[in-house]
């Protein structure tokens, strides 16, 4: 398969990237640090470990997705390796999908590694394993997949630095747009509300993937909500990939 061949090579290339190991190293330090932080606090120490741990996985996972995602396609264009690749009888769509899948595989493995460290630290503290934690991590992973698609989209038309900044902006908006939903409820119905609603639909809402509070505080999570979030991630990621393809399809590689 052409897509899997490209995905495999992307994974191979990502594996060699020092940035990935640097971020992983910092993530590990933060995870360990949560343990010490817990020692210093009074009150629910397990909660601190969980809070800091999940936040670290999310933060460093996001940085990995953005930095890898914006770098890899650009590098292929910049180093002109794309010339021989696209001269082969492959669709540009296949190239982009292969890149995406290779990156997702990389992010998946990194998430698993971070999760293992996190669960180990948690286990050493509590001597139990809470499987619900894995659910929170799984949804962090879904968010990371979406962020990979975002990074890929920006890297199809701009330099890695700009693409990283745009992606970071997207991430921040994505985590603040829930406030828009609050606003909609307060505004009287009419044109203003319609505009806000449209804005809310177009803007990403990454809080949809946030089950950290529920998991940390042992709150019930409705299955329906899990389903909706998963579906939201799927559709939004597909939308981003299609957008990237439309840009990439007609691009000149001078």
């Amino acid at each position, binding site marked *: 398969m*052409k897509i*899997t*061949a*490209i995905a*495999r*090579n992307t994974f*191979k*290339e990502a594996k*060699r990237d020092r940035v990935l190991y640097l971020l992983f190293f910092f993530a590990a330090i933060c995870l360990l640090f949560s343990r010490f932080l817990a020692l210093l606090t009074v009150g629910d120490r397990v909660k601190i470990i969980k809070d800091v741990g999940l936040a670290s996985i999310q933060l460093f996972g996001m940085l990995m997705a953005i930095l890898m995602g914006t770098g890899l396609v650009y590098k292929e264009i910049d*180093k*002109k*390796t*794309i*010339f*021989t*690749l*696209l*001269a*082969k*009888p*492959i*669709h540009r769509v296949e190239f982009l999908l292969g890149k995406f899948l290779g990156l997702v595989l990389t992010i998946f493995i990194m998430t698993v590694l971070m999760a293992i460290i996190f669960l180990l630290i948690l286990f050493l503290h509590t001597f139990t394993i809470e499987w619900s934690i894995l659910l929170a991590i799984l949804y962090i992973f879904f968010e990371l997949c979406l962020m990979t698609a975002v990074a890929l989209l920006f890297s199809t038309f701009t330099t890695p630095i700009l693409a990283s900044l745009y992606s970071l902006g997207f991430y921040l908006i994505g985590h603040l747009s829930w406030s828009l939903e609050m606003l909609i409820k307060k505004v009287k119905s009419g044109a203003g509300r319609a505009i806000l609603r449209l804005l809310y639909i177009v803007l990403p809402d990454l809080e949809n993937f946030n089950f950290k509070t529920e998991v940390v505080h042992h709150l019930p999570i409705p299955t329906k909500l899990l389903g909706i979030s998963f579906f939201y991630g799927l559709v939004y990621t597909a939308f981003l990939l299609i957008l990237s393809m439309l840009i990439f399809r*007609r691009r*000149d*590689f*001078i």
Partner: protein
Amino acid sequence: MAKVLELEQVYKAYRFGFIPKKKQILKGVSFYVNEGEIFGYLGPNGAGKTTTIKCILNLIFPDAGRITIFGEDSLKPKARQRVGFLPENPYFYDYLTGREFLTFYADLLGLHGQSKIEKIAYLLRLVGMERAADLQLRKYSRGMLQRIGLAQALLNDPALVILDEPMGGLDPIGRKEFRDIIVNLKKEGKTVFLSSHILQDIEMICDRVAIILAGEIINQGYLGDLISEKVLYTEVTIAGLPAAEFNHLGESVSTSGNRVLLKVYEESKIDQVISLVQQKKGKIISLMPRTETLEDIFVNMVKNQ
């Protein structure tokens, strides 16, 4: 004869800058390549050779015009099914070894199993890279990259091989090897399209050529038709006599030691030179008629434009 590749009135402009400025690179390029021939695409630096090739391969999209490969519109990936391509300064994944690199591309082309392994081994042998097969590409020299690049272009057993400056970066032996490989490709029934400005190479192996200058094709056709068999002048090297003796017969170009190199333009004067040398007890070292070369044509055309 079937046309393997045909370009009709291809135009391409690049736009750059913050406020885009247009630069017309290809100004209506048309030519065709017949099945089974070696076609040379000549032009000075910056004429648009690489740009044309990128249009053919869909790396860039022409603003206007039509390109067909095996009768198929070049916009379809299917048209590239039987095409192999070597870019001008091959850039490859430098972290892969030669063998890994070829394996990756073989996977892309859907080769698998024993036939894949055999094909790769065969190509490594063909381009003389067996010993460097397990070395990372970052440790390759330019000529070695060129060789592995050629192997990559031949992976899918292409019926049309497109080579952009294939001899660039090669030593004289490498150039000869590449020429032999290209001629062999022709013998196998493949069509070869190559761009170059090393005219001797083209003259030695090409059947037909097109000459591009500043984005326009200014001449194309069979090499034999472009180059006349007419003798331009005859070079006579004479020993033991002063150059002044021959001033009325031709132009003495250089004298070194006791030798004179004489350019004789009229055929009738050659006999006079010979008898004069015999009469004065001199010696003729060599006598060589010079016919027109591709270089003469090329230089003339570029001057005339």
